[in-house]
């Protein structure tokens, strides 16, 4: 979706504000949100793409006004309801609907340690042929899907060079909507800064963007810059 989250290349967002000796969490509730999301993620009733997309669905004005953890919390509440973990009435009362069976948590302390150490790989060890080769010129497809995508707007329609083939990964555009993993190659694609931003960009600078096969099409070697 062409949402506010896709902000690469925008102006007007204000100065960068680094904080000296910044704490990992600014409030204890932020750390609880961080941990609760992982603990509930362990139920595997959503995936990383679903959870990212839920944040993107926050309306633009709210997205910009909210802090990072406020957005994470808001999206988490919606996901918990959508996936049937809690009801609005339960959230309101703070107690389970009477008669609800008590579950066994999906993530124990032991499994949390394992999750931290191993992560959740999104590569897939299956033979899928790459559509492009290193060194090949490609064009990032001009697509504007209303759902989740990881092809940022600023590369759409632009020419780049395949820098590296990272291998086969789950495809976010389907995975975010429970439409399957559709595993395919992801490439690091080099875009000249001038191709993306025009003649005012430094001639030797470049942006490297990781893009899936479905985001790319072959292009004639006709460098504009």
């Amino acid at each position, binding site marked *: 979706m062409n949402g506010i989250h896709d902000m690469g290349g925008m102006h007007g967002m204000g100065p960068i504000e680094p904080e000296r000796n910044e704490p990992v969490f600014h409030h204890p509730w932020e*750390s609880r949100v961080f941990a609760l999301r992982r603990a509930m993620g362990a139920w595997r009733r959503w995936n990383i793409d679903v959870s990212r997309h839920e944040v993107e669905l926050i309306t633009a004005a709210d997205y910009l006004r909210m802090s990072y953890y406020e957005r994470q919390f808001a999206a988490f509440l919606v996901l918990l309801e959508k996936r049937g973990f809690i009801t609005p009435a339960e959230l309101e009362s703070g107690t389970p609907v009477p008669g609800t069976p008590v579950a066994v948590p999906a993530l124990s302390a032991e499994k949390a340690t394992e999750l931290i150490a191993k992560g959740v790989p999104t590569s897939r060890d299956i033979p899928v042929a790459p559509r492009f080769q290193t060194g090949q010129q490609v064009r990032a497809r001009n697509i504007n899907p209303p759902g989740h995508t990881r092809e940022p707007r600023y590369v759409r329609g632009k020419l780049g060079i395949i820098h590296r083939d990272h291998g086969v990964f789950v495809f976010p555009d389907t995975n975010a909507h429970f439409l399957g993993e559709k595993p395919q190659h992801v490439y690091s694609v080099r875009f000249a800064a001038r191709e993306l931003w025009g003649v005012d960009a430094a001639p030797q600078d470049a942006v490297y963007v990781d893009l899936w096969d479905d985001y790319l099409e072959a292009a004639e070697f006709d460098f504009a810059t």
Partner: protein
Amino acid sequence: MTRTHDDDHQDVPSDPALRVKALESLLVAKGLVDRAALDVLIDTYEHKIGPRNGARVVARAWADPAYKDRLLTNADAAIAELGYAGMQGEHMVVVENTPTIHNLVVCTLCSCYPWPVLGLPPVWYKAAPYRSRAVIDPRGVLREFGLELPDAVEVRVWDSTAELRYLVLPERPAGTQSMNESELAALVTRDAMVGVAKVTAPQGDQA
């Protein structure tokens, strides 16, 4: 789809601390969440995993050319040699700064960051000003961090749009030949490993 605060749980307290506490109590009461697991997660990222991990990787690469080669060709395995791996660092790429190339890492779409080597990202990395401008005006962004690059240097920005996570291998500063690995690691900052700073030798220690 639209969403407002009003149709979002209007009777829940507006103070996020109270709302989060209420949700946690509910999830624990339903047996969906084990508080011991929450404590492990929070303790790990508050106290155990942070930029010191990445600094050790960088120092090893500076001290050991064979390690550096492994790091640049197979980052996952090389980083695992030092015991670092896991969540949000499942697929690592290390990019090397040189006198003629400067690398900068961003996630324009959300907040992707290499947790096992850098810990959780700072607020500015996740915020709109950095995410929006790092790709279109990297030199201006670096200037804002106090780093002015010569025109001849090539700036490479790495946008973490997929599940690859990027770590910058900064240049080893001059005058550090006599330092051992742990002294070198102490020089390496988080900002240098994101690419918004260089590593500098301590004053007075110049050889």
